[in-house]
């Protein structure tokens, strides 16, 4: 396999965005066609990279830009984990694209190029093997996300966008301070070289390295919207238009991805006694608190967009807690949960945009506050005949599927993923047991919140007028849920891939060896 293929996921959307900007806003069809081509090409390239990465346990593709040795140059690394994330993002983008064809992309001039630039950022961040390059791709991603979060304008979006940008700029500063500290101590920013050097650090350099890593971690925790630095998320995501929020669903997972990758590379089991599992206790408890906060938020959410945003927090907390356990079996389950939750949450964001009244472009469907006095069960009015026009049936079926996926109930793949995540969790101490219990309780909260929303939207309000649903919008939602449905039946091959991925990232020797070319047995 040619190593240069590794840079294709960055170049394809970058070229597409450049051409789209040059085309101008008049040639909308050409721009849209280009977006489809680019997304299809990305799916194809990601699938090829995935096949080459799964070719044996240690197959890691390394591409050095400019052909400089790894210690100085920027490298792109494709292993099983990055190939998985690339494919997930590409599929997500391709599935969300039809949704935006109609009214959504007309709300502002540059929707398509911004989406392509967002994908440049995603793909680059998944591929890079260098901390500073990671910063650059994060900034590309964020710059595009600022534009997308503000797409459609309006006081609510601009207000939320202002907070979002201020918080992310601050996080970028923390990122840079962390990078600076690490560079000052080790003289390199290449992740594999760093992983090679860390076991040899002692005294003050080790403390500074830990401090730098903690600041980096804080920056990624802000991106992953973990408590107490995640309060920006519900407002921003529920203010953004649905296709944008669906694409953002993968952004918190990018934070989780970086934490997973760096904590296992830098502070894995063989990083020396003083550095092994650095910070994992903190990550576990922060994950647990985020999970609780997200569950409470879900129960109190007053509109569907907020409900979906709190689902993001719940999945983020669960994943962070699972990642912190440093166990290959739990990590494999966490990856399965990550895939399903990205697809399920994206579908839910899209669906929330469809059931909102058409004139209320600015907000998702509103829910009434809970009032036991008027919420009496078995009221006489419940016994009316149900006459549902067919689009509503599709919407309601999709809503049901979303609920099952996000709550992790059988029979859909959400259950399989959650089971794979939770089953190996017991036996890792008190924190893991607590996370186990709370993840199940969060499932219950999801069911309650979704059932309440579903009853109010589809049953209680007879006169609710559903907007006319454009074909592309249905295609997107059905496609995302369809992938989850397929993953319910096709389990063996994806699961084997995920289990091998978890084994691979828990033995970072292959990664370090592939990048630096040095024998890992020589590590002290």
């Amino acid at each position, binding site marked *: 396999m040619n190593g240069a293929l590794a840079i294709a996921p960055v170049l394809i959307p970058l070229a597409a965005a450049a051409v789209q900007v040059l085309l101008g806003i008049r040639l909308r069809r050409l721009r849209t066609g280009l977006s489809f081509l680019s997304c299809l090409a990305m799916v194809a390239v990601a699938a090829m990279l995935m096949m080459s990465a799964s070719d044996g346990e240690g197959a890691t593709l390394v591409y050095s830009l400019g052909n400089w040795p790894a210690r100085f140059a920027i490298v792109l690394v494709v292993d099983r984990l990055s190939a998985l994330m690339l494919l997930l993002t590409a599929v997500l983008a391709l599935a969300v694209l039809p949704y935006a064809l109609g009214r959504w992309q007309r709300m502002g001039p540059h929707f398509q190029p911004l989406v392509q630039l967002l994908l440049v950022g995603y793909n680059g961040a998944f591929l890079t093997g260098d901390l500073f390059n990671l910063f650059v791709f994060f900034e590309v991603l964020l710059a595009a996300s600022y534009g997308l979060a503000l797409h459609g304008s309006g006081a609510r979006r601009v207000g939320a966008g202002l907070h979002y940008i201020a918080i992310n700029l601050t996080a970028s500063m923390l990122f840079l301070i962390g990078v*600076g500290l690490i*560079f*000052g101590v080790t003289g390199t920013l290449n992740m594999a070289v760093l992983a090679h050097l860390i076991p040899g650090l002692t005294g003050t350099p080790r403390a500074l390295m830990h401090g730098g890593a903690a600041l980096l971690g804080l920056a990624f925790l802000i991106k992953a919207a973990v408590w107490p630095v995640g309060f920006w998320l519900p407002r921003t995501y529920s203010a953004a238009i649905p296709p944008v929020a669906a694409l953002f669903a993968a952004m918190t997972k990018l934070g989780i991805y970086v934490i997973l990758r760096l904590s296992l590379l830098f502070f894995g089991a063989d990083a020396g006694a003083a550095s092994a599992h650095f910070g994992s206790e903190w990550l576990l408890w922060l994950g647990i608190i985020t999970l609780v906060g997200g569950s409470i938020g879900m129960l109190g959410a007053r509109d569907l967009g907020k409900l979906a945003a709190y689902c993001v927090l719940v999945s983020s907390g669960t994943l962070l807690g699972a990642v912190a356990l440093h166990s290959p079996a739990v990590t494999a389950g966490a990856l399965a949960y990550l895939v399903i939750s990205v697809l399920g949450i994206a579908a839910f964001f899209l669906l929330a945009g469809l059931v909102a009244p058409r004139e209320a472009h600015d907000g998702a469907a509103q829910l009434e506050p809970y009032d036991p006095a008027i919420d009496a069960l078995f009221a006489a009015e419940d016994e009316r005949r149900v006459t549902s026009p067919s689009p509503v049936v599709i919407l309601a079926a999709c809503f049901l599927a979303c609920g099952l996926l996000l709550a992790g109930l059988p029979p859909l793949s959400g259950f399989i993923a959650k089971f794979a995540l939770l089953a190996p969790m017991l036996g890792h101490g008190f924190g893991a047991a607590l996370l186990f219990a709370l993840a199940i309780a969060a499932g219950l909260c999801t069911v309650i919140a979704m059932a309440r929303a579903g009853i109010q939207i589809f049953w209680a309000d007879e006169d609710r007028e559903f907007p006319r649903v454009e074909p592309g919008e249905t295609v997107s939602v059905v496609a995302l849920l369809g992938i989850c449905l397929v993953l319910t039946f096709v389990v063996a091959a994806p699961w084997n891939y995920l289990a091998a991925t978890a084994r691979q990232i828990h033995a970072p020797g292959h990664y370090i060896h592939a990048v630096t070319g040095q024998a890992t047995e020589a590590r002290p």
Partner: protein
Amino acid sequence: MEAVLAIAIGALAGSGVWLLLRPRTFQVIIGLTLISYAVNLFIFSIGGLRVGADPVLADGAADLSRYADPLPQALVLTAIVIGFATTALFLVVLLTSRGLAGNDHVDGEDGTP
């Protein structure tokens, strides 16, 4: 020299954080700018401070300690460009918010009625 630089970075970062926590959008953007100055100086100084040292290696240079580390300078250049661009973008959003909300409070509404 190290002490002067450290105090400068500390003063910039401290004032930046204080301004960042203020309620007016203009104060927030000035705060972010000050923090980014502090961070850029910090990155610039991580290679060690040297006065009058050549940043680029000449052919056959034997004693590396006589040269300044060029990599932090490259890093800080990138960080300055990115910080500049995002601050400019933030300024546009700030002005839009001012226009839409009618005031310059970060929440879009003044506490005073």
